[in-house]
């Protein structure tokens, strides 16, 4: 200590500096010393030395000691204010538990003027309680974290009383603090992240706390939390049978607070990090919901333990929340439950899973999910399936489904306004996600599949929603692109492929900003698909070229290569360039085989079958067909996959007039679709239409006739748009059937009704083509050559140029 200052004035300054330095966390002390003004530079080294000495006093030296009561000493039964315990004077009792008490105390030897929390055991000196304190000392000695109350000192006083001197935290327990401050759900979660930081730090130091509860978390006036009481903590891996700590560990495991104890803790099974996660889950649940997740009646320990190990948990958003509880969170009961619904439900229930393996594996992963929620990203606790998310959305917003287009539209606009307001309120991330979820759910509500075939909102909310989205400036373009993607899917699902294509193009344009990102590539492939759906093959080819260009900077994955070749083949096929198509499909097939992708193999085979039939090579086409039929039996395929791929194969034969060979497969597909989706599923309308047309082509006329009658009866009650579109298609099949049966007058009636429906439903070019052909066929059967020739001199949808949109189910009557 010969470097210590000689000047007494310097001693005074040094003492003040030491006190200030001691008030800082150890890892900040050096930087603070370095920042001292030049006039105090001479004191920097002495200050460091003093701090080193002090650190030894506060932790290492004392911790190295053994907490045992010296033999022959009988400690007094009680302690009082003013009593001395080691170098500490007791100032005020601040806590009292079954096993000991905690006192506010201060050092009396003048070395450091600081108030500490002095933890004393009860004067009933059980050996294991002393061991427990020694254990806490050991564990705390190994932990140094800003959110864990620090251990300053530990030892045994002159009367044999073991003590722990801990950082005194002047504050409130966590739950009281949250209520006193009326913290919102977001505020509570943000604060709770500090608890998770502390627990995670302990976990990384192989320490399980085992008694996490609001009472062991204090919050100071600067809103900093301190985790306390590692009294029943244990070291991970300290539970082997040979470990001397084992017996203590087991005896202490019953010392937990039952309300926060995990099922495995109650059952005295092996504890893991997930056990602390469970307790954290209970704490968070109570903080957010205002009640315990456990459903009990009298709250006895026995009942609690049964509830923990066997009972059902209360889903947060279904809890009974009163106005005062909600008010403490600055909200109303309804709003609070809506905030909890969905993602926070999922997070809390995952943290509280009865089976430890189903919980978050660590405090860190729970923390990460809460951060995702705060930042507006989807949480991991929730299944990633968007469809499932949408179904949940639809389920919880059932009222919007039933009240018609006007109301749905109003809700859409409200959602858009909410986005703008959220941005202004600087809550864009959270709100944008909520709104995105809302919009996606709303838009995909138009998908009849979600409503058992009822088309509930059709085009209007989509159109308004999309327009509003176009107009929102500075909206996160990735989120916007995501919403466009959903809107495009909805347009496609309600049969408006052209609008779907335009919407998809907006998505591509937004994502072009990122350069050749994986997201852009996906969007480009989706766009190519939408162009193909609408028959815009030239545009599809241009965007396929764009993918080709980008692939030089970001090579395509095997899957993308398979898709690329398939799309190129499909475009060539539609252009009747059968040779090129055959080559592309062959490449796609090889690539699919490389990646063992049975779906892609089957699709490529279906395309190559068409190419080969187009080339007049029936033999090689049927070789492919045999391979494909055999692949359909692949066990990796689900029944639905089998139906979809089977339909593609059958349709490949139909397109090239191979009616006889493919009919048995088509019948299988038709039956499977009915088994899977019911008799008149809107999702399988194309399957049903192909089947009916096919039956006519091979002269099995009775089957489609009874199907049409049943279909009309089933659809009678419907009056929505998609029903009207399908009605046109079914009527066209009916007219064809009547012509085949020679019922010309009836066929004429049906055709007239389709012409008349054009006022309500804009006929697609495919349907118009079929209508023109049927009209000519009727005239031919009537041998009215003049009317035929007259019809053909007028502009019609029969242009032989082949430039127009391709027919989806156009009905050809030439055979």
């Amino acid at each position, binding site marked *: 200590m010969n470097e210590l200052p000689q000047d007494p004035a310097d001693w005074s300054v040094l003492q003040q500096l030491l006190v200030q330095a001691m008030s800082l966390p150890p890892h900040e002390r050096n930087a603070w010393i370095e920042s001292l003004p030049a006039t105090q530079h001479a004191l920097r080294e002495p200050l460091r030395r003093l701090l080193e000495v002090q650190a030894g006093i506060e932790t290492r030296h004392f911790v190295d000691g053994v907490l045992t009561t010296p033999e022959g000493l009988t400690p007094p039964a009680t302690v009082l204010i003013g009593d001395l315990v080691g170098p500490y004077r007791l100032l005020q009792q601040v806590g009292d538990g079954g096993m000991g008490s905690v006192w506010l105390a201060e050092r009396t030897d003048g070395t450091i003027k600081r108030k500490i929390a002095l933890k004393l055991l009860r004067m009933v000196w059980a050996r294991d309680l002393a061991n427990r304190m020694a254990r806490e000392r050991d564990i705390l000695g190994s932990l140094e974290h800003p959110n864990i109350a620090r251990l300053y000192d530990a030892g045994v006083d002159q009367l044999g009383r073991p003590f722990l001197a801990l950082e005194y935290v002047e504050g409130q327990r966590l739950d009281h603090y949250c209520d006193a401050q009326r913290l919102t759900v977001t505020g509570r979660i943000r604060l709770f992240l500090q608890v998770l930081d502390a627990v995670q730090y302990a976990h990384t130091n192989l320490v399980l706390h085992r008694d996490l509860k609001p009472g062991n978390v204090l919050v100071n006036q600067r809103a900093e939390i301190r985790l306390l009481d590692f009294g029943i903590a244990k070291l991970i891996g300290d539970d082997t049978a040979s470990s001397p700590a084992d017996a203590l560990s087991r005896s202490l495991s019953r010392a937990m607070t039952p309300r926060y104890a995990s099922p495995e803790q109650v059952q005295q099974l092996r504890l893991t990090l997930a056990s602390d996660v469970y307790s954290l889950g209970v704490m968070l649940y109570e903080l957010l919901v205002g009640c315990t997740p456990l459903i009990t009646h009298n709250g006895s320990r026995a009942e609690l333990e049964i509830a923990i190990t066997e009972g059902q948990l209360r889903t947060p958003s279904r809890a009974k929340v009163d106005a005062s509880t909600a008010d403490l969170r600055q909200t109303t009961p309804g709003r609070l439950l809506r905030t909890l619904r969905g993602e926070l439900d999922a997070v809390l229930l995952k943290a509280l899973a009865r089976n430890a393996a189903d919980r978050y594996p660590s405090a860190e992963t729970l923390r990460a999910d809460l951060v995702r929620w705060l930042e507006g990203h989807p949480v991991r606790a929730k299944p990633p399936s968007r469809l499932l998310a949408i179904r949940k959305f639809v389920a919880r917003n059932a009222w919007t489904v039933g009240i018609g287009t006007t109301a749905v539209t109003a809700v859409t606009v409200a959602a858009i306004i909410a986005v703008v307001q959220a941005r202004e309120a600087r809550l864009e991330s959270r709100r944008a996600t909520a709104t995105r979820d809302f919009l996606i759910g709303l838009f995909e509500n138009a998908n009849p599949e979600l409503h058992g075939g009822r088309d509930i909102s059709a085009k209007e909310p989509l159109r308004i929603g999309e327009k509003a989205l176009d107009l929102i400036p500075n909206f996160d373009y990735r989120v916007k692109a995501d919403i466009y993607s959903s809107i495009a899917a909805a347009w496609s699902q309600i049969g408006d492929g052209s609008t779907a294509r335009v919407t998809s193009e907006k998505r591509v344009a937004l994502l072009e900003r990122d350069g050749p990102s994986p997201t852009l590539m996906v969007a480009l492939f989706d766009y190519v*698909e939408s162009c*193909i*759906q609408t*028959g815009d093959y030239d545009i599809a080819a241009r965007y396929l070229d764009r993918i080709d260009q980008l692939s030089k900077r970001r090579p395509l994955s095997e899957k993308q290569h398979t898709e690329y070749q398939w799309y190129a083949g*499909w475009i060539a096929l*539609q252009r*009747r360039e*059968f040779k090129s198509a055959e080559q592309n499909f062959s490449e796609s097939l090889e690539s699919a085989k490389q990646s063992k992708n049975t779906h892609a193999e089957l*699709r490529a085979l*279906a395309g190559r079958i*068409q190419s080969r*039939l*187009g*080339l*007049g090579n*029936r033999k090689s086409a049927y070789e492919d067909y045999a391979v494909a039929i055999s692949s359909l039996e692949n066990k990796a395929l689900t029944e639905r996959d089998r139906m979809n791929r089977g*339909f*593609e194969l059958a*349709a*490949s034969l*139909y*397109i*090239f*007039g*191979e*009616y*006889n*060979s493919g*009919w048995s497969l088509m019948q299988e597909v038709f039956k499977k679709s009915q088994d899977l989706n019911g008799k008149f599923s809107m999702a399988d309308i*194309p399957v049903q239409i*192909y089947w009916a047309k096919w039956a006519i*082509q*091979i*002269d099995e006329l009775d089957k489609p006739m009874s199907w049409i009658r049943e279909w009309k009866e089933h659809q009678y009650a419907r009056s929505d748009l998609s029903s009207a579109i399908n009605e046109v298609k079914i009527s066209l099949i009916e007219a064809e059937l009547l012509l085949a049966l020679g019922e010309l007058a009836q066929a004429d009636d049906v055709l007239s009704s389709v012409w008349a429906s054009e006022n309500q439903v804009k006929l697609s070019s495919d349907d118009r*083509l079929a209508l*023109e*052909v049927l009209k*000519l066929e009727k005239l*031919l059967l009537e*041998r009215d*050559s*003049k009317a*035929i*020739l007259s*019809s*053909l001199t007028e502009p019609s949808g*029969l*242009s*032989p140029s*082949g430039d*127009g949109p*391709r*027919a*989806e*189910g*156009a009905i*050809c009557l*030439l*055979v």
Partner: protein
Amino acid sequence: MTAREPRGPYVYWYRGLALTLDGLYEIAETELRVAESEAANVFGPLHPRTSTTSFNRLVISLVNVPRDDGDFKRKLSTLRRITKRLKASLGERHPHVERAEQIMGNLERGALESMLGDKQKIILSMILY
């Protein structure tokens, strides 16, 4: 993706048949020849629509301008191939196949010679639609 059915050479087909009804066989044959080519391009050479168009054109040609034996036999042989194709596409019991076989039987038996009195009737009884 569900396959889409292509548009066809309908204008030429219906014009050809309407002209046949009006007895304008040469122009009808020309129209059907274009329809045949379009159909082969659009539907593929094996499609029953292509086959039917070819069948009708050949029948009109055979009845309208009977040439020497060699030409007749060549056309008969082509019609036989087309009938076989129709059978593969539509199945043996399809009405069009049965009718095509019946027509082929008549042609092979030389029944055509005995029906030459009413060309219009013969042609209309022999075309497929």
